């Protein structure tokens, strides 16, 4: 399912500027969507993600926030990578990330107060989201700004895909709706259909991701011995 989105997205951006979207750059962008997905393959960024997936809307906004932060933190760190002293690089990275997260938090508080209340501390926890630190350490510190930004965007997107997928499952089966609109009709409830209460509880997210990992790895045998 992730591959479908990349094949449709890649040709639409590719013809515009050949140099910017060379084969290597496109690969940086699409690898994190499936084969090198930050959540299911690299095992990064589970922390703040799972708790916001009870409904689709907060999950989508969280994903957008993370995409913003990963893209720009990768870009900024990559631009100043030659001036950062190696010993204190973690603190420098954290300050840059914290600044970006503060921007996201203030924006949400100003324009989407109800969602901001729902996400509560989890916006702040984007700072310690391992995806961001992981990509900064593994990619941005060694690469040029443009590929770094693409890598950050791709990883944010790969994270967002999983997040929204889990949220769709949990909201549909847990409360019979998507984006707050009722999808399961009333007559189904009258005939004895019951919402699955487990889906609203925290463990459901782990079950869904565990089963997704199982499916992904049985489809792609290369990933089996990753971790």
């Amino acid at each position, binding site marked *: 399912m992730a591959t479908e989105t990349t094949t449709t997205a890649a040709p639409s951006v590719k013809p515009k500027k050949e140099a910017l979207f060379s084969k290597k750059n496109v690969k940086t962008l699409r690898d994190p969507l499936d084969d090198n997905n930050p959540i299911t393959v690299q095992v990064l*960024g589970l*922390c703040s993600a799972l708790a916001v997936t009870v409904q689709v809307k907060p999950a989508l906004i969280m994903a957008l926030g993370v995409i913003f932060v990963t893209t720009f933190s990768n870009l900024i760190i990559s631009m100043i990578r030659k001036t950062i002293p190696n010993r204190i690089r973690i603190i420098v990275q954290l300050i840059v990330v914290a600044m970006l997260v503060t921007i996201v938090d203030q924006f949400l508080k100003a324009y989407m107060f109800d969602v901001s209340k729902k996400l509560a501390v989890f916006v702040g*926890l984007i700072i310690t989201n391992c995806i961001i630190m992981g990509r900064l350490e593994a990619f941005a510190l060694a690469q040029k700004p443009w590929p770094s930004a693409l890598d950050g965007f791709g990883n944010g997107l790969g994270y967002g895909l999983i997040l929204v997928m889990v949220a769709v499952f949990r909201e549909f089966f847990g409360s019979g709706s998507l984006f707050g609109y009722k999808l399961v009709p009333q007559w189904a409830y009258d005939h004895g259909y019951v919402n699955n209460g487990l889906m609203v509880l925290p463990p459901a997210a782990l079950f869904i991701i565990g089963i997704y*990992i199982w499916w992904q790895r049985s489809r792609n045998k290369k990933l089996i011995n990753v971790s």
Partner: protein
Amino acid sequence: MENLINLFIKAVFIENVIFAFFLGMCSFLAVSKKIKTAFGLGLAVIFVMVLTTPLNYFILNYMLQEGALTWIHPSLASVDLTFLAFILFIAVIAGAVQLVEMVMEKSLPSLYISLGIFLPLITVNCSILGTSLFMQEREYGFVETAVFSLGSGTGFFLAIVLLAGIRERLQYSNIPAPLQGLGIAMIITALMGMAFLSFSGIKL
């Protein structure tokens, strides 16, 4: 006193950082392959958490909140710096971890060696920052903050040692190849989370 014991039990069992909020999942899954290393990481997390959360409490209450700066000059009463909370909290945590690392290397080399790479990693453990942010959101007092941070740390310690125990046993069981490793660890965590949900019946 009773109130504090309740808060501690609540933080350890009912609102366990791992099973109720998924905080610190990355290191929880990555470092839970052996009981011994899990034990070391758990202890380090308790230590850093008990150190940094009260520090952040002071920063919040004497620097950031509206009216907190009156101890410098009464005219600063209307200054509200809470939007700086993220940057200062994470700077305190990163600084404290660095400091602990240096002190430990000098004075407790045996413990330092046994903790190894986990000490610097704690900086990006979400449960540490999460505890500070919960402290801010729930407006705890100082003693409550100290007890809450101890409880959260203990909850993390308990969870990671339990999972490591189960994963050590798993090596002898026959799991389908695609599910091995991460997949089964996720599902086990979910089952453990369901077990911990039963604590929510306790009325405090």
